[in-house]
């Protein structure tokens, strides 16, 4: 793993303006889906992004891909801010930053053969593979993702969910990208198949030096695949750091609650202490004052209700909590080393 950042996101922000002003004017409401998120992706590195529905993780993915235009911030690819690029330039750059979506059933065109699905990107970027080599390249891509080269003439419906996700990955690889955004890429798969696809992603990374932004709600998968992890809550990063550090020694009460909620496949530990969070994630149109987590936080004090906590650095990790270095909460997280 080298340390030159391939992909850098600085203070990215995405606000959605809701509705129209009323008859008498009135203030437009905005929903801050992503609030000042920053992270760096190096070659061969995986950054995991976790959080619950509505925390802004998919908005973040769409924004850094420029599928949604951000409200503010920077996205740098090899140092160049891609948010300033004119449309045509951006189009050219897209080959380097690909995406694999969650649903392998709706992200492949049912009328196309696998060959056509995999070669279509080359119509936009003909220089990547010259026409006479495409046939061979399709076969190569299929073997790379563990499918049979003879599968090229089949249609998506003839494949299982896991195999379709492999096709989706092969399509992303067709343009020889450096960065792949995996938006819940293994979430729809069954456990036994999910493990195959997770292993495949790891193998491809080792082979090709890919950088992944791995977005998932499943903390166990993220723990498994990520070098660093970002935890989001209500559009904000609440904790960030090396995966082992965050999972073993979480500093933010939300991270602790999140980890604690994950059921452990170990009947002997079913009576351990767990945190059952009260209530639900607040409406992001009306986020709470101060720390967005304070209404559900067992450790909240006055300052949490009034002041947004600054990001506190603790070793290589950081947490957005007033008491990140005081609270002794990490013991509750179910992260005792498991031999594997």
């Amino acid at each position, binding site marked *: 793993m080298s340390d030159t950042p391939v992909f850098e996101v600085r203070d990215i922000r995405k606000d959605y303006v809701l509705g129209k002003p009323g008859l008498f004017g009135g203030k437009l409401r905005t929903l801050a889906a992503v609030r000042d998120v920053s992270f760096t992706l190096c070659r061969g590195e995986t950054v995991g992004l976790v959080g*619950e*529905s509505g925390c802004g993780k998919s908005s973040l993915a769409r924004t850094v891909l420029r599928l949604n235009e951000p409200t503010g911030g920077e996205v740098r690819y090899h140092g160049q801010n891609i948010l300033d690029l004119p449309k045509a330039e951006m189009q050219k750059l897209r080959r380097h930053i690909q995406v694999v979506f969650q649903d392998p059933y709706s992200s492949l065109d049912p009328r196309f053969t696998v060959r056509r699905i995999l070669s279509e990107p080359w119509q936009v970027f003909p220089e990547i593979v010259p026409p006479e080599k495409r046939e061979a390249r399709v076969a190569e891509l299929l073997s790379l993702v563990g499918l049979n080269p003879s599968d090229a003439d089949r249609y998506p419906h003839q494949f*299982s*969910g*896991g*195999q379709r996700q492999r096709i989706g990955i092969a399509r992303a690889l067709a343009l020889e990208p450096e960065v792949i955004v995996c938006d819940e890429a293994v979430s729809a798969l*069954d*456990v*036994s*198949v*999910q*493990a*195959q696809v*997770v*292993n495949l992603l*790891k193998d491809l990374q080792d082979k090709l030096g890919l950088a992944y932004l791995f977005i998932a*709600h*499943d*903390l*166990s*998968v993220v*723990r*498994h*695949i*990520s070098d660093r992890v970002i935890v989001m809550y209500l559009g904000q990063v609440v904790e960030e750091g090396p*995966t082992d550090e965050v*999972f073993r020694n979480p500093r933010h009460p939300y991270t602790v*609650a*999140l*980890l*604690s*909620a*994950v*059921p*452990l*496949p*170990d*009947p*002997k530990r*079913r009576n351990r202490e*767990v945190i*059952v*969070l009260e*209530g*639900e994630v607040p409406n992001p149109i009306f986020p709470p004052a101060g720390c967005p987590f304070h209404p559900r936080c067992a450790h909240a004090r006055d300052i949490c209700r009034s002041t947004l906590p600054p990001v506190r650095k603790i070793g290589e990790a950081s947490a957005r909590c007033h008491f990140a270095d005081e609270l002794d909460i990490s013991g509750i997280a*179910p*992260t*005792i*080393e*498991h*031999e*594997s």
Partner: protein
Amino acid sequence: MRAMQQSETQGAAPAPLLDVRDLRVTFDTPHGLVRAVGGVSWTLSPGETLGIIGESGSGKSVGLEAIMGLIKTPPGHVSGQVMFDRRDVLTMPERDRRQLRGEKIAMIFQDAMSALNPSLTVGTQIAEVYRLRRKCSHADAERKAIELMDRVKIPSAKTRIGNYPHEFSGGMCQRVMIATALALNPQILIADEPTTALDVTVQRQIMTLLAELQREDGMALVLITHDLGLVAETVDRAMVMYAGRLVESAPVSALFEVPSHPYTRGLIRSMPRIDGASGKLHAIGGTPPAAGRMPKGCAFHPRCEMRVERCGIERPNLRPVGKNRAAACHLAEEIPHV
């Protein structure tokens, strides 16, 4: 529940509440007859929590839907026996069956949002159960609905009773569905992936709630899920299904420690763990067979690391392997620890 578990381990099993014998479900399709569930037998004791584990297409949901009478026939065909209270559920007249559903056996589903009627208030939908089944007056039914909403911990039930499902979050909708299911105090609650669509902290809330309600009412719970973690934390006994058949049944602690079927072992090992180290996962190779194309012999043998010649020829029957355990594998006694 504890007492029952004990009596079970001592071998003196109480009379089962539900006794499923050789349940089969097939469907007529344009591609011929497809077998979804092929001869499954199991029992459920009063107050017991039973987990049914399986991947997509394993038949775990279809079997329970057949028991509830939710399979459309034709194209479906259901055979076998399902004994409840000394009567066969599958052959009783539809009138009696309707009576049974909700009254004795209730079911909740994964997608609570779409299981509720979007054009009726949640209060109406909960109260409806009392008005139709208990012939309660509107006022009475509403009072009971509020009680029930309190019980499933929907905050400010009195005001939220007039809300529509879209005004509720996914977790709250699931609570509403649990409320309607529990309205008539059923003896069995079948929960089909009740938390799969929910976030993990909400899942924790719902599972805690279900455990509480179960403790109070003493009902039996059948939890259908693909999540081994949920099974490990919730159930007394677990059954594993593969390709429409039961491949293993065991007390949950035994199942996770020493599985008796290579598929169970493979599932446990392929699962990424939050308390585990990173590195390669032990994936099971291949994919489950399509319903119309079952391999000869053991359905799992093409993916099995332990297969021997016999596995491709002779289908193993579910047979007892030790105390309260059964497995359908020729090599059940030789499966290594996880």
